[in-house]
C-alpha cells in the first residue's frame, strides 16, 4: 500500500512481525512445533530466504535443536505455545546453565481465555523458575523491536531469552516499522567448550554461580532498559502493567501515569520503587496470575492488583474500568439463541470413526487435535483429554486399575501428529507393560487443527521439500504391537468390524484410521459428487443427522405437512443435505437403512 509503505511500515500480525524480526535479527535456524497462537511465526519465517526453518516432532526437540544451533554460533528462534513450553521445560532449565553462543530466543505464546487450549497457564513463572530473562511486547510493532533486542540480550548475558506473547498480541494486526537484515556477531563454527556445555555436576555447579552473576547483571540492566518506560500523566493512580494489559490501561485510563514493564523478568525493582513513591496509589493490571504483583510486593512496595483485577480469562478495557469502579454504561443483555460451537468439517474422516466408537461401552481417552471435537454432541465420543499424547497413558492406566475387567473397556484416540509428538513412548509402555487397550491413530496425514502443518508422517517439510514419511504401521510393529490394522473410517461397516475385534482383544493393538483431511489442498481440488436425500424414502429416523455433519440438517414436519408429503403423520421431519457443503464422503449413505440417500447429479 503506497501510503503505508512510504512510512516504511507494514501491516503485520504479531506472529508475522516476529518472523520479520527474526529475519532482521539475522536468525539462520528456527525450529518449533505448531500450536495456537504461535503457529504462523514459523510458517511466515519459512518464506524468508537465508533462514533454515523446520517443524520438530515436539517442543522439547525444537529447543534442543535450537541449543545445538546456538552452540555452533547461529542466532536461533524456537517457537511454541504455552503448553509446549511444558514439553520443552527439561532442556529449558538446563539451557539456562549452558547459556549460548549465538543468541536463542524462545517464543512462548500464551492463550488466556483458552480460545484454543486446554489450560491458561501463565508462562511468566517459567522465567522466574528457570532464571531466564523474559520480554513481553504489547503489539506487533513492539514484538518485532523487542525480538531484536532479545537477541542482543541473549548474547550479551549468555542466556536464552523468553519472549512471551498472548493471543491478542500474536493474532492482532497493526502497523509495524520494518528494517534490514543484520547478522549476529558470533561466527558459526564448531567450538568446544565442555565446562559450559557438558552439564555434569562439577560443571553445573560452576554454571549455577554464573547464572547468579548473570541475574545480578541483568537486574542492573533492566533498570535503564528503554522499553521499561513511564507514560506521564495524572498521578492519583499509578498503573504498573505490561504486555497486552498495557494497551487496555491506556484505553481505559488515557490520562493516568503508567509504568510499562517490558522486562517481565527480572523486574526493574528500583524503577518500580521510584515510580510508586511518586503516585498516590499503585494499581497493577496484568492478565492471569498476580506475577508482577507478587514480586513487587515481595520487594516491599505497596500495591493493589488481583484484589480488584480478575485473575481468570482475558482482560479488556471494559473489564479494567469496571474492576476499578469506573462507569461503563448500559450494555445490551445477550439474546438466548442456539450456541454455535466448532464442529468437524463436512466429510471429515474422524466423524466416521467416532460415530462407530460411540456405540461401544468403552472409556475413550482422547487427545489434542481437531478430533477432540468428537466430544461434542451428537457424537459425544470422548471421555478424557489432558495434553499431547496423554490418551495412551490414560487408557493404559485405566486398564491397569480395572485389572481383569479391563478387557474391551479402554481405547485411546490420537492423531498422527500428536502420536509422533508424544504418543510413541506411551505406546512403548503399553506393550512393555502388557496393556489390553486399543490405540486408534487418526491418520489424516497432517497437523490439521493448527492449519495443516506438515509432520514427520506427511512426506514433506516446512520448507516444502519432499521428506521421508513415517510408516506408522511399521513403527507400531517395531515397538512390539502384534495387531496393527489399517481401516478407512469412511467405510462405516468395515471399520466397525475391526473395532469390535481389536477392542475385545486382551492384548495391546493399534488401529490406524487412515483418510486425508478434507481441507488438504489436493482434497479440496478433488471433484466431488454431492449426496442428496430422496425425501420420499426418508423415514425421519435421524440416524444420518446424528453423524453431526454440518452439511446435514433436519427439516421438521407438522403432522399435516407429513401427511401432505405422503408420510405417516407421526413422522417428525426428514433429513436434508446441503449440496454446497457436501464433500461426498459417503458416511451418511453408509448409515442409511432406507435407501434415502444417493448421489446427486453432477460434480462440483
Amino acid at each position, binding site marked *: 500500500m503506497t501510503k503505508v509503505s512510504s512510512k516504511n511500515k507494514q501491516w503485520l500480525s504479531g506472529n508475522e512481525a516476529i518472523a520479520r524480526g527474526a529475519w532482521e535479527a539475522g536468525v539462520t535456524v528456527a525450529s518449533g512445533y505448531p500450536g495456537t497462537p504461535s503457529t504462523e511465526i514459523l510458517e511466515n519465517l519459512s518464506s524468508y530466504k537465508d533462514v533454515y526453518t523446520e517443524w520438530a516432532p515436539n517442543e522439547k526437540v525444537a529447543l534442543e535443536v535450537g541449543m545445538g544451533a546456538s552452540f555452533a554460533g547461529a542466532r536461533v528462534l524456537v517457537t511454541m505455545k504455552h503448553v509446549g513450553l511444558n514439553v520443552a521445560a527439561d532442556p529449558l532449565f538446563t539451557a539456562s546453565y549452558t547459556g549460548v553462543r549465538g543468541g536463542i530466543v524462545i517464543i512462548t505464546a500464551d492463550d488466556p481465555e483458552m480460545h484454543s487450549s486446554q489450560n491458561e497457564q501463565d508462562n511468566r513463572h517459567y522465567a522466574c523458575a528457570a532464571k531466564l530473562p523474559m520480554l513481553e511486547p504489547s503489539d506487533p510493532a513492539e514484538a518485532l523491536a523487542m525480538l531484536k533486542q532479545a537477541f542482543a540480550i541473549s548474547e550479551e548475558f549468555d542466556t536464552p531469552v523468553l519472549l512471551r506473547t498472548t493471543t491478542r498480541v500474536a*493474532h492482532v494486526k497493526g502497523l509495524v516499522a520494518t528494517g534490514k537484515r543484520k547478522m549476529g556477531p558470533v561466527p558459526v563454527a564448531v567450538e568446544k567448550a565442555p565446562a559450559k556445555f557438558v552439564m555434569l555436576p562439577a560443571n553445573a555447579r560452576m554454571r549455577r554461580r554464573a547464572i547468579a552473576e548473570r541475574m545480578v547483571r541483568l537486574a542492573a540492566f533492566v533498570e535503564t532498559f528503554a522499553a521499561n518506560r513511564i507514560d506521564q500523566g495524572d498521578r492519583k493512580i499509578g498503573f504498573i502493567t505490561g504486555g497486552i494489559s498495557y494497551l487496555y490501561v491506556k484505553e481505559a485510563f488515557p490520562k493516568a501515569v503508567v509504568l510499562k514493564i517490558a522486562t517481565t523478568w527480572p523486574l526493574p525493582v528500583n524503577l518500580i520503587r521510584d515510580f510508586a513513591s511518586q503516585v498516590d496509589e499503585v494499581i497493577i493490571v496484568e492478565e492471569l496470575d498476580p506475577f508482577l504483583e507478587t514480586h513487587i510486593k515481595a520487594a516491599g512496595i505497596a500495591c493493589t492488583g488481583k484484589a480488584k483485577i480478575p485473575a481468570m480469562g482475558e482482560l479488556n478495557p471494559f473489564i479494567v474500568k469496571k474492576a476499578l469502579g469506573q462507569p461503563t454504561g448500559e450494555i*445490551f443483555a445477550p439474546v438466548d439463541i*442456539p450456541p454455535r460451537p466448532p464442529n468437524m468439517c463436512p466429510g471429515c474422516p474422524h466423524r466416521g470413526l467416532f460415530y462407530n466408537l460411540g456405540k461401544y461401552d468403552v472409556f475413550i481417552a482422547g487427545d489434542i487435535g481437531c478430533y477432540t471435537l468428537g466430544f461434542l454432541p451428537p457424537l459425544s465420543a470422548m471421555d478424557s483429554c489432558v495434553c499431547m499424547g496423554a490418551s495412551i497413558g490414560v487408557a493404559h492406566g485405566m486398564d491397569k486399575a480395572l485389572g481383569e475387567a479391563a478387557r474391551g473397556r479402554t481405547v485411546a484416540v490420537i492423531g498422527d501428529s500428536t502420536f509422533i509428538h508424544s504418543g510413541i513412548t506411551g505406546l512403548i509402555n503399553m506393550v512393555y507393560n502388557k496393556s489390553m487397550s486399543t490405540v486408534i491413530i487418526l491418520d489424516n496425514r497432517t497437523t490439521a*487443527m493448527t492449519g495443516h502443518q506438515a509432520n514427520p508422517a506427511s512426506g514433506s517439510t516446512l520448507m516444502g521439500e519432499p521428506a521421508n514419511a513415517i510408516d506408522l504401521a511399521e513403527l507400531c510393529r517395531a515397538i512390539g504391537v502384534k495387531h496393527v490394522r489399517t481401516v478407512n473410517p469412511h467405510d462405516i461397516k468395515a471399520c466397525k468390524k475391526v473395532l469390535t475385534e481389536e477392542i475385545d482383544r486382551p492384548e495391546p493393538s493399534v488401529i490406524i484410521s487412515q483418510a486425508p483431511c478434507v481441507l488438504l489442498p489436493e482434497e479440496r481440488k478433488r471433484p466431488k459428487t454431492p449426496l442428496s436425500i430422496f425425501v420420499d424414502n426418508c423415514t425421519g429416523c435421524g440416524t444420518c443427522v446424528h453423524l453431526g455433519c454440518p452439511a446435514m*440438517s*433436519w427439516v421438521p414436519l407438522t403432522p399435516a405437512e407429513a401427511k401432505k408429503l405422503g408420510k405417516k403423520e407421526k413422522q417428525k421431519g426428514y433429513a436434508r443435505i446441503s449440496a454446497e457443503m457436501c464433500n461426498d464422503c459417503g458416511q451418511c449413505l453408509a448409515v442409511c437403512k432406507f435407501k434415502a440417500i444417493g448421489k446427486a447429479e453432477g460434480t462440483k
Partner: protein
Amino acid sequence: MKPSGNILFCGVGGQGILLASEITAFALLECGLDAKKSEVHGMAQRGGSVVAHLRFGKKVFSPLIDPGQADFLVAFETMEAVRYLPFLHQASRVIVNTHQIAPPAVATGKMIYPADLLSHLTSRGIAVYPLDGFGIARAAGEIRTANLVLVGALSTFLPVEEEVFLEVLKKRIPRKLEENIAAFKEGRKITA
C-alpha cells in the same frame, strides 16, 4: 463521518470474514489512519462462531472492541448478528447477510432456528441493513463474492472514498477482480 470507529465482523468459521476485515483495514490505512485488528484462529475456525475486531482512528491502543462500543457490525450470518448484540449501542449500524446456517443443535433437530431474529436489534433502535449477500453475489457473477457485498454496504459509512476501496481491491484481489468490484458496488447501493 467520524475519523475513528469500531467495526465488528462476525459469522461462521470459513465464511471469508478475515478477507473482508483485511480489505476494510487496508482501505482505512490507505487514508493515513491507524488501525488494529484482532482475529481468532485455531479451534474456533472449525465451523464455530467467529469474530474479528477492527478499530481505526488517529491512534489506536486496544485491539479489542469493548462491549457496547461497536459502531458497525458486519454479520455474515443472521443468528450471528444477534449473538453479538452486547457489543452494540443504540447508534450502531448492522449490515447483515440474511443467509442462515443451522448450528449443530438446530441441524440435529434439538433446537429450532429462531424466527424474526433481527427484531432483537431493531426493537432496540439499532439500524439494520439486511441483504441477500449470496443472491447479490450470484447476480454479480461469482457467488464467492458475498463478502465483498457486505464490505460494499459497510463502506458508505466509513471515512474512505469509494476510489480508495477500488484501488485496494485491485491490489489485493488476485482473481475475478471484475466480479468482486461488481459485488462491492452492489453492496454500496444498499446503504448509499
